[in-house]
């Protein structure tokens, strides 16, 4: 479904140039869920932004659903690939009702039957149709993220790109959203690319994952290897160790990785 080869992204010029992503390659089959894990500045979100066309300055090759993608994306691409962002407080227009947020993609893509689609999308994400005429400030964080997911799903995409979809939420709400995403993936045969700093979330959601550090993929592996605690690279092992909780003795063994 998705094939990324030698993707590189550089910001700035000359001596100020920052190589945010360097020669990243991965493949995601249709219906799979792929995770990109890393700490801040590892380039994981930049990969996602290049993939969905939010960035134009990249080199390499991106193929989605059999089509080689250029710097500008056709409208059909955005019907196929939709994105959900981290912060549901920032990604919904504060002065637009849920109804307006959901009608806009329908109108842009001239899909027709907005009423039916909006109600179906709200039902899909577990919100009552009465939420249609509410404003974001009348919703909790979890409800807002459900609206953001509904907005992505209303175009019936085949790929959902998820950028830290639950890191702004409380753990009990996170569990609800993760369950919802898994249910939607099964129901609609969606392909996921999930970016997160949280190894547990990625281990829970994904079949395969790639660990990134300083713009490069450190290693890619099936989730079983992570669960068994057997990543190959020292960087990944350290990340896993740190994710399991505080251990005074382990901290002294931490290394810097370049």
């Amino acid at each position, binding site marked *: 479904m998705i094939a990324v080869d030698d993707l590189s992204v550089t910001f700035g010029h000359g001596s100020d140039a920052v190589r945010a992503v360097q020669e990243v390659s991965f493949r995601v089959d249709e219906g799979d869920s792929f995770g990109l894990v890393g*700490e*801040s500045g590892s380039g994981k979100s930049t990969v996602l932004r290049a993939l969905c066309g939010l960035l134009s300055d990249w080199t390499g090759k991106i193929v989605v659903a059999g089509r080689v993608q250029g710097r500008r994306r056709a409208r059909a691409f955005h019907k196929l690939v939709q994105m959900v962002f981290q912060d549901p407080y920032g990604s919904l227009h504060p002065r637009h009702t849920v109804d307006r947020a959901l009608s806009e993609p329908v109108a842009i893509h001239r899909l027709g039957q907005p009423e039916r689609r909006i109600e179906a999308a709200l039902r899909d994400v577990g919100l009552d149709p009465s939420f249609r005429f509410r404003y974001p400030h009348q919703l909790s964080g979890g409800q807002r993220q459900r609206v953001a997911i509904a907005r992505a799903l209303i175009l019936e995409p085949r790929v959902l790109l998820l950028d830290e979809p639950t890191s702004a939420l*409380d*753990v*009990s709400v*996170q*569990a*609800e959203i*993760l*369950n919802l995403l*898994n249910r939607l993936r099964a129901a609609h045969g969606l392909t996921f690319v999930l970016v997160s*700093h949280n*190894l*547990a*979330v990625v*281990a*829970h*959601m994904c079949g395969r994952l790639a660990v990134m550090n300083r713009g490069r993929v450190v290693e890619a592996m099936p*989730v079983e290897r*992570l*669960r068994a*605690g057997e990543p190959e690279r020292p960087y990944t092992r*350290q*990340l*896993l160790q*740190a*994710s*399991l*909780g*505080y*251990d*005074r003795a*382990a*901290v*002294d063994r*931490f290394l810097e990785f370049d």
Partner: protein
Amino acid sequence: MTRTPDDGPLLSVADLWVRFPTRKGVVEAVRGVGFEVGREKLGIVGESGSGKSMTGKAILRLVPAPGEVRARALRFGGLDLLRIDEAAMRKVRGRRISMVMQDPKYSLNPVMTVGRQIDEAYRVHTGAAAAAARARSLEMLRAVRIRDPERVYRAYPHELSGGMGQRIMIAMMLIPDPDLLIADEPTSALDVTVQMQVLAIIDDLVTTRGMGLIFISHDLNLVASFCDRVLIMYAGRVVEACRAAELPLARHPYTRGLLGSLPRVDRPGGELPVLRRDPAWATDPAGAGGR
């Protein structure tokens, strides 16, 4: 500094209430919380809106107006924090109880060098001369494991990473050598490895100086592995208190629900149990209604 762990609690809080009058009636952010802190690491865990941060602020009398703080007792050492005047309170804040906030981006002054800010924290409380303060600040930067203290001393906050910023906050809070440190989500803006390194610094300082620590966090696993004791807060109340190591055996349905809703690296995916909130938890701190 030699302090014995059994010289009584540093801080005792009994029946603490924080109320905010609003147009729609009174909002009770903290409702009858009581606990004691000795020279140990006490964790306070809860979700957003549980009242955990307000509890920390109430101890330092930092609850913003129009909030009201009431308590049966709020004692620190020999002081009654409810009664002493503002001048006496200023001597407690920073000097004897200090607080580290979540995000160094907002807690550090962007137009002052790091060194001047740490110096100020020391000189305000001790009246030391500039040269002495500088020497002490550099020493403190080394204590929080800043590799190049001279450079960082001269740097502005925007020139430093988040992890460094948070270490500087910790240096600043520890330089007056307080008896109690209140850390409100001190590491949640940091990457997980940096988070562990910053916690190790706090841990070592608590151990070597015999300080008390109140560690406020939303992260159950982290608190369970880092603290000695844990209080779980829900809707302004403490619903459960236990030894951190015994958290996996927690009995209250809210604590159990929170623990269950965490995805884990070492467990296969599938449906996560979703927390079903029982209105009785808000009124019945013992959790008998949920059992």
